[in-house]
């Protein structure tokens, strides 16, 4: 009785996995395209190339803006994440633990700003960037990205801080630790997984962001990966192979995060939606 059931279960597993692998075909197809010889790109079928080539990657790395854009994105996303955490962590602690006047209103404002459409502030921010001479700089992008990553950061961190049993903090206070000491020695260590989840989501947000990056950047000095990809140049024909290679490079950090840090990613995603 038991055995056939298990076999059906395994078969079901394989079917589901197969279906989900098929779901990722758009990605794998682009991956394959990025290694296909130029001459075979537009001749489909056959689906599989006769040989694999690195030519597209060579073009992207040697002749396009992509390497610079990867550096810009890495810098902007890292700085955005750090800034959002540095500003957001004390804020989240205050929201989660301290009695504040007007706390409900503040929370409402934070939730509302996570729903804020970027298009609503892009025109004044453009004027602001121009007035402050921040167009086409990392600093400008980091600032506007932080303004969107910050509400999310506070929202997530406040939830994670509430999960830390308040008794541990009280015990530390009894032992004579000040607010800073409690923060450094009790809250932060217990909060580490939550901090990781939050940081990942902030990083991904900044890495993927397009509207602001497209509007506030002018040159290779600050163009991020999505912008460089959207503006990928073609002279006479669309360079499908080069675009495929460039989009694979643009996907490296997100893909690594999904594969290596999936646990933290899922935890952050779910926490963001479930907390009241």
């Amino acid at each position, binding site marked *: 009785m038991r055995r056939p059931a298990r076999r059906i279960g*395994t078969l079901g*597993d394989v079917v*589901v*996995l197969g279906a*989900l692998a098929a*779901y*990722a*075909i*758009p*990605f794998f*197809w682009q991956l394959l*395209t990025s290694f296909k010889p130029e001459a075979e790109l*537009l001749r*489909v079928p056959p689906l599989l190339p006769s040989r694999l080539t690195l030519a597209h990657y060579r073009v992207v790395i040697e002749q396009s803006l992509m390497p610079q854009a990867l550096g810009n994105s890495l810098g902007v996303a890292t700085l955005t994440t750090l800034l959002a955490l540095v*500003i957001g962590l*004390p804020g989240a602690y*205050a*929201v989660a633990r*301290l009695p*504040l006047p007007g706390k409900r209103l503040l929370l409402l*404002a934070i939730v*509302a700003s996570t*729903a*804020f*459409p*970027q*298009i*609503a*502030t892009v*025109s*004044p*921010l*453009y004027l602001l960037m121009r007035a402050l001479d921040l167009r086409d700089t990392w600093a400008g992008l980091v600032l506007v990205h*932080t*303004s969107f990553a*910050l*509400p999310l950061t*506070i929202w997530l961190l406040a939830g994670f801080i509430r999960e830390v049993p308040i008794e541990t903090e009280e015990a530390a206070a009894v032992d004579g630790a000040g607010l800073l000491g409690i923060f450094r020695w009790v809250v932060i260590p217990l909060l580490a997984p939550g901090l990781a989840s939050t940081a990942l989501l902030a990083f991904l947000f900044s*890495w*993927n962001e*397009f*509207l602001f990056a497209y509007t506030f950047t002018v040159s290779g000095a600050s163009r991020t*990966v*999505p912008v460089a*990809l*959207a503006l990928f140049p073609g002279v006479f024909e669309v360079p*499908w192979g080069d*675009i*495929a290679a460039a*989009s694979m490079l*643009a*996907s490296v950090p*997100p*893909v690594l995060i*999904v594969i290596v840090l999936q646990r933290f990613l*899922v935890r952050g*995603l*779910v926490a963001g*939606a*479930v907390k009241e």
Partner: protein
Amino acid sequence: MLLLAPTVLALAALTVYPGVWVLWLSLQHRIPIFEVSRFAGLDNYAFLAVDPRFLNAGRATAIFTVASVALEVVLGLTAALAIHAQRGGRRLALSFLLLAWAMPAVVTAKLFEWLYHPTAGLINVALGARSLNWLGDPGLALPAVVLADVWRTMPFVAVLCYARLLAIPAELYEAAQVDGAGRLATLTRITLPMLGRILLVAVLFRTLDALRAFDIMFVLTGGGPAGMTETLTVYAYRALFQTLQLGFGSALSVVVFLLVMAVAWAYLKFLRAGTTVAA
């Protein structure tokens, strides 16, 4: 209070202040290249009421939002149930899904532009060497954009539902089994009701995102062909930065903003009402 000061300062400077500024801009005629800058009152909004392009953008936004959110919820729920029923390989299964979600939307647009290629695109090949012009045909472009967006964001719904499924106490299922409930009864009487709330949350998040979606249509079709995929956000962006009508574009942005806030408010009311009934 000191702990919150940097947050309040940052949000005030980069969200609230521009939010008020955009309202002010929307009341002006401002076209920098012609050095036009004067107060216009509600002219920009009055123009919207008779602007066929605005109505068209509203239509595209409505179709895009309803179609993609509906598909995402149905597919995401199905995927979550399927992964939950798996005994092994759940992590790998989730990876395939999250891959689609984690990439920049611009990459998704490039992926699908290639899949939709009229002669060499995988989709036409799979359809038996048809030569449908997915992104150039006015009847196909919006469905094509919806499909790309669903591919990218369905995993979000799936992950939320899957996490909720893991949290349903096993005793409920055991009790159902004891009562002799079949698979269908278990699904409709236990699983789906337990998922109700998280589905509402997922629909809220996805609706807000769909209303302000920009990257996917801007890169994939640029709003074309013939404005078929030009949503309110794309129209606003083009008015602001392509035809450089800072005042009029800001009025469009304000409309998107109000739309998003109205939907968020309505959902929150609905959610809260649902909670009271459940309690």
